[in-house]
């Protein structure tokens, strides 16, 4: 983790506990599309939160706002680690819906990129890259180009692209959306192990209800556009979780059914 986030002294004591907080955050695009309407929620540090919602309800928009890529409408606010979010910071890593690897450089060079852009020292970059390739099991493929990777490897590499900066907050926009069920389950477990070790704060957008229930401490459900948060459900299976045991809890099925119902109705 990044030691001593910048400006840690100035932030109000009350905000210290929450990694992310939004208050009445709305987003209206030019042309009048209201994507989000008065979204307020808080995410505590090291919490794993999933967001479920119908397609087009503003999930990606919300993630962009939290990531500092687009501003909230006047009157709302988005805070990350207590600071008003104005521009992308290295505390926040975003894995987008579409993969973002440059086709003209190797997997390794793609993973290094963010560190180079943030001006880390050469030796530090080399060390971090080596570790990440190792953790993500990409070392044998580091000299391949992105189009030579399988879907699962590409998604691991996409994680590598942001983990290199060791962000405290991970914003994941349907990172496993394009994968087959088997690979998806496997990467879910890997993500879980990664998070158990790094204890980052995670917001995961997903369309898979079982995935959300399996991974999360908490699930936020959004309404149709304009997106609002219509349910906030705590999932308190013991940690560490693993597919066999966690999915075997009767409450697991209950949660899935409740959420199915909720999503079906809207």
């Amino acid at each position: 983790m990044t030691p001593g986030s910048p400006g840690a002294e100035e932030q109000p004591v009350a905000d210290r506990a929450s990694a992310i907080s939004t208050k009445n955050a709305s987003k209206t695009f030019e042309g009048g599309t209201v994507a989000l309407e008065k979204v307020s929620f808080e995410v505590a540090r090291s919490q794993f939160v999933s967001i479920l919602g119908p397609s087009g309800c503003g999930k990606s928009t919300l993630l962009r706002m939290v990531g500092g890529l687009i501003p909230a409408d006047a009157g709302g606010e988005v805070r990350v680690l207590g600071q008003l979010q104005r521009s992308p910071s290295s505390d926040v890593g975003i894995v987008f819906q579409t993969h973002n690897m440059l086709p003209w450089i190797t997997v390794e060079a793609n993973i290094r990129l963010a560190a180079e852009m943030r001006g880390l020292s050469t030796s530090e970059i080399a060390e971090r890259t080596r570790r990440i390739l190792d953790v993500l099991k990409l070392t044998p493929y580091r000299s391949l180009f992105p189009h030579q990777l399988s879907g699962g490897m590409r998604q691991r590499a996409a994680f590598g692209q942001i983990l290199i900066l060791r962000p405290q907050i991970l914003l994941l926009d349907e990172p496993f959306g394009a994968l087959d069920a088997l690979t998806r389950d496997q990467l879910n477990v890997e993500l879980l192990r990664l998070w158990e070790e790094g204890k980052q704060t995670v917001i995961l957008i997903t369309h898979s209800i079982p995935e959300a229930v399996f991974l999360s401490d908490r699930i936020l459900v959004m309404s149709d556009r304009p997106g609002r948060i219509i349910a906030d459900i705590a999932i308190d299976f013991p940690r560490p979780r693993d597919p066999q045991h966690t999915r075997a809890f009767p409450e697991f099925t209950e949660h899935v059914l409740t959420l199915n119902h909720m999503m079906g109705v809207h």
Partner: protein
Amino acid sequence: MPRLSFLRAVPRSFIDPLVAFVVLAVIWEKAVDLLGIKRYLLPPLSQILATAWKNIDVLLRESAITGWEVVLGYVAAVAGGVALGLAIFALPVFRRTCYPFIVIFQGLPKIALAPLLVIWFGYGTSSKVLMAFLFAFFPVVISTMGGLAGTPVHLIEHFRAIGASPWNTFRRLRVPSALPSIMDGCRTAMPLAVIGAIAGEFVGSEKGLGNLVLLANANARTDLLFAALLAISVLVGVLYLLIELIARRIWWRGL
């Protein structure tokens, strides 16, 4: 078939055009005889090749002259075109001032400028270089601008998210992603540069392949005229091949 096995080592991409060429040559050769076409209208290929061989030193000398004009004009067009494309893309001032002029200028028949250039720069190399430049310039500018503007938005957003500076975004994202398109412009520009130089030689020159075409024409030497045309094709082919070799280093189109 042991006798043919050596052929397998030669790539199809080389054999296929060669076969097509030979078939075409045979048809030409036979057609001229069968249809009784007058030799001063269309000499058989064998005669053209014989003339070309006899005058090989002249052809090489003139090719070198025209080739040099083309290379100078082309290199200037690529350098200038890419630079201007970048400037127009990066600086709105250039977009407002230079761009309209370039578009209007592109609409002019540049061939009509050749006499003027000869008056200004004389019968020597420089007017031909300038013609080659003018013909090749525009596609490079347009393809550079298009390439830079076509950077995928999700990659631009990713660069913003990882805190890349505008300079780094330009250098490490926009330029490489524009290269395939710029390369297309350079490909298009190569034959145009040759046309420009030859057109310049037509209007006023003492040397070069264009001049040789005019001379052969004036002396009713159709075979030499065709030999000169052959030399022009070879020149275009060789220069184009060079561009292709460079273009191969930019392989990430559409990935």
